């Protein structure tokens, strides 16, 4: 099934032009794994980059990397190979798995009904985590001071305020100061990539409790 909730046009453009923050790039790359529609859009935006290059007057050098950077080996760790991953991690998309410090991280207890892959990865200084909620779990209403990006990796959840349903590959992007809650589908566990750029302000006592134990 093809996702119905996509990154917005600005995010796709930022991803293609290479100006996106790394944590947002991770979310977009995971979404692209599931979304042929947005992959077509990215292919077009890459072509725009190519056409802009073509259009440069001869002799005018853009702020592109010098050739030694183009041909140098990138100073980044080699991509890890993932052999014999535990089944609960094998189902995660590859762009995400590249961020695990540990080759075979396991979901650990976080709160009743909530397990997560602990903060073994931080994307560009922004805490990101993979959280697995038990079927039927309800996240109480809360307000974000910063942006919140939730990409559903498996299962289904419903936003309590907008009543929208998010399934595998769907991206929920909340602007700062919006209030919402999420209810997991009772039909199965729900696994999400969750990235918040600022502290969450719970709007209920249960929410404060949840924040205290989980920091989500």
């Amino acid at each position, binding site marked *: *099934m*093809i996702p119905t909730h996509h990154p917005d*046009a*600005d995010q796709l*453009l*930022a991803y293609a*032009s*290479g*100006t*996106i923050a*790394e944590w947002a*790039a*991770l979310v*977009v*790359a*995971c979404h692209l*794994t*599931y*979304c*042929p*529609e947005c*992959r*077509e859009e990215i*292919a*077009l*935006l*890459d*072509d*725009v*980059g*190519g*056409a*802009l*290059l*073509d*259009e440069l007057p001869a002799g005018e050098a*853009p*702020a*592109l*990397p010098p050739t030694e*950077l*183009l041909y*140098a080996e*990138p*100073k*980044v*760790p080699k*991509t890890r190979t993932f052999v014999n991953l535990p089944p609960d991690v*094998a*189902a*995660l*998309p*590859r*762009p*995400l798995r*590249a*961020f695990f410090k540990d080759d075979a991280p396991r979901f650990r207890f976080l709160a009743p009904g909530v397990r997560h892959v602990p903060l073994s990865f931080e994307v*560009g200084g922004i805490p990101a985590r993979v959280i697995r909620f038990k079927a039927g779990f309800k996240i109480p209403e809360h307000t974000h001071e910063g942006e919140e990006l939730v990409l559903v*990796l498996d299962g289904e959840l419903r936003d309590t305020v907008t009543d929208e349903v998010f399934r595998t*590959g769907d991206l929920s992007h909340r602007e700062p100061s919006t209030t919402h809650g999420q209810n997991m589908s009772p039909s199965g566990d729900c696994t999400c990539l969750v990235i918040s750029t600022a502290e969450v302000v719970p709007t209920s006592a249960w929410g404060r409790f949840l924040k205290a134990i989980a920091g989500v």
Partner: protein
Amino acid sequence: MSTWIFTIARNRLIDSVRRQKRPEPDPDDPCWVGDRQSDSPNPESATYALVRARGLRSALAELPAEQRRVLEGLYFDGLSMSELAEATGIPLGTIKTRARLALRALRQHLDSHEREASGT
């Protein structure tokens, strides 16, 4: 070809400057959801790529200068939209609007160009 050079340059730049790997989707990923079945031309085909590149170039040529500058700022100066707003003193909302208008114009131009090219 130009697209290929652009993507290599962009990825090398991100790797080298940020010392980070750009997160990219992987077609061999077991989670990969395949392409839609469609009647549109195969984007992998060389003819299609040529038609599209030509269409994009002529569309870029027709773009208002201020819209084109936003695209160049993003693609070549490596500035995000907020950085671009800060650098130029143009409000962020205006930058975003220009980027959207530019992309809409490119897409519309491309659609008509491809229709012409396929003779329909």
